[in-house]
């Protein structure tokens, strides 16, 4: 039985198949609308994450399946002290596949080791969030036509942002990719990632100001810079505007650059940018549903002929 714990669990060739399927679903959703009839997805969310949970539920409902689950630990038996191992054994009797979000890192892996059904890691603490990475890759692949040969700028909190770390690790498997890390020194990319890039001979650059590099980028991946990450207020006030994308900064960018963001956005992208065709973050949320639909079908071993 196959699970998804980490975006690297799937080989590049397997990801290509998954993205082809997601693309096919996006082109003709009706064709896939009954493929999961009679199947149940359990969304076991031990911490609230409305967006991810609804994306999974939407994916299953659009495949003709049904959903059940809980959206916070207090409304589950975890509040009574039940272990993850016990919960998943029980859930395995109720559902055909499970998406699990848990504040403890590695919890979905423990669940997978005891589960009778496929388990998808829907985010475990600050560790992994593989379906966000699949969504990011799917968006780039669909809108650029390929996952090779581009310059990507990752901007904002590169120290604590798990979506950024997972995306970089996933992109290291493709060729001709150049990374530009745009962050304040306090939030720079961790050494273990730059060590890995150095070891693999992958080109990267670290800069502080977005304006200094935006003109070189094919893709700009924005993340939020949070006030609480700074040691003092003065540094935060000095640096925060460097990482806010405005129409003025966007004028320096290429005509075909794409702006991605894992969402939710707070103020790091001005709302005026939303109308620019280069802003693709809402399309990204749509691709997130298609890629989760493809993932559910793949892990359940379903093909459209079964519909």
């Amino acid at each position, binding site marked *: 039985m196959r699970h998804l714990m980490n975006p690297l669990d799937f080989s590049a060739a397997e990801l290509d198949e998954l993205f082809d399927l997601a693309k096919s679903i996006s082109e003709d959703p009706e064709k896939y609308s009954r493929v999961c009839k009679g199947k149940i997805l359990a969304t076991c969310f031990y911490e609230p994450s409305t967006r991810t949970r609804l994306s999974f539920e939407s994916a299953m409902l659009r495949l003709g399946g049904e959903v059940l689950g809980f959206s916070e630990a207090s409304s589950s038996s975890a509040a009574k002290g039940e*272990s*993850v*191992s016990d919960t998943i054994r029980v859930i395995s009797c109720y559902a055909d596949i499970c998406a699990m979000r*848990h*504040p*403890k*890192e*590695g*919890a979905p*892996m*423990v669940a997978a080791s005891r589960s009778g059904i496929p388990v998808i890691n829907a985010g*475990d*603490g*600050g*560790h992994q969030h593989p379906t966000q990475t699949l969504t990011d890759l799917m968006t780039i692949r669909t809108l650029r036509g390929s996952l090779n040969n581009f310059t990507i700028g990752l901007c904002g909190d590169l120290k604590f942002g798990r979506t950024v770390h997972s995306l970089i690790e996933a992109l290291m498997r493709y060729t001709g990719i150049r990374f530009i890390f745009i962050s304040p020194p306090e939030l720079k990319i961790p050494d273990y990632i730059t060590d890995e890039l150095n070891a693999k001979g992958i080109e990267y650059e670290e800069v502080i100001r977005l304006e200094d590099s935006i003109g070189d980028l094919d893709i700009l991946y924005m993340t939020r810079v949070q006030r609480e990450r700074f040691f003092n207020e003065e540094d935060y006030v000095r640096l925060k505007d460097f990482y806010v994308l405005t129409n003025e900064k966007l004028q320096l960018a290429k005509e075909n650059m794409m702006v991605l963001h894992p969402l939710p956005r707070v103020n790091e992208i001005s709302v005026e940018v939303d109308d620019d065709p280069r802003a693709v973050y809402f399309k990204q949320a749509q691709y997130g549903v298609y890629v989760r639909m493809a993932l559910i079908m793949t892990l359940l071993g379903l093909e459209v002929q079964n519909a």
Partner: protein
Amino acid sequence: MLNIGQIEEGFVLDHIQAGKSMSIYKHLGLDKNEDTVAIIKNARSNKMGRKDILKVECDINTLDLDVLAYIDHNITVNVVKDGEIVDKKELVLPKEIKNVIKCHNPRCITSIEQGLPHIFVLADEKNEVYRCKYCEEKYAPKDGSDI
């Protein structure tokens, strides 16, 4: 110089870093069986200045070399049979270690899930880095605890 009698069958673990012998004694589970054990601490050594030595009289098939290799792969393991050294074992870093060290990451599932084994996987052989199988946090020993 302190003299300890020779053993008939078992192991002599030599070149243990001074002060580590009690930890090895514990992790090999020697406190839980009735084997005869001699622990020599702070013995003089030309190579190391000071070293510890452990002599264990036991069945030679019972020693967990993986645990030993994790603790210190520079330890010399002499296998003794009929009072003679018959073999010297080379220690290699184990790919995986189970229930020897504990994950200190408070966000790791091992901090709350009962009965879950603490498993560490060798992530970087050159720098001897182990990472928790569940949360992938690098193992960093806390002062005075673990090994």
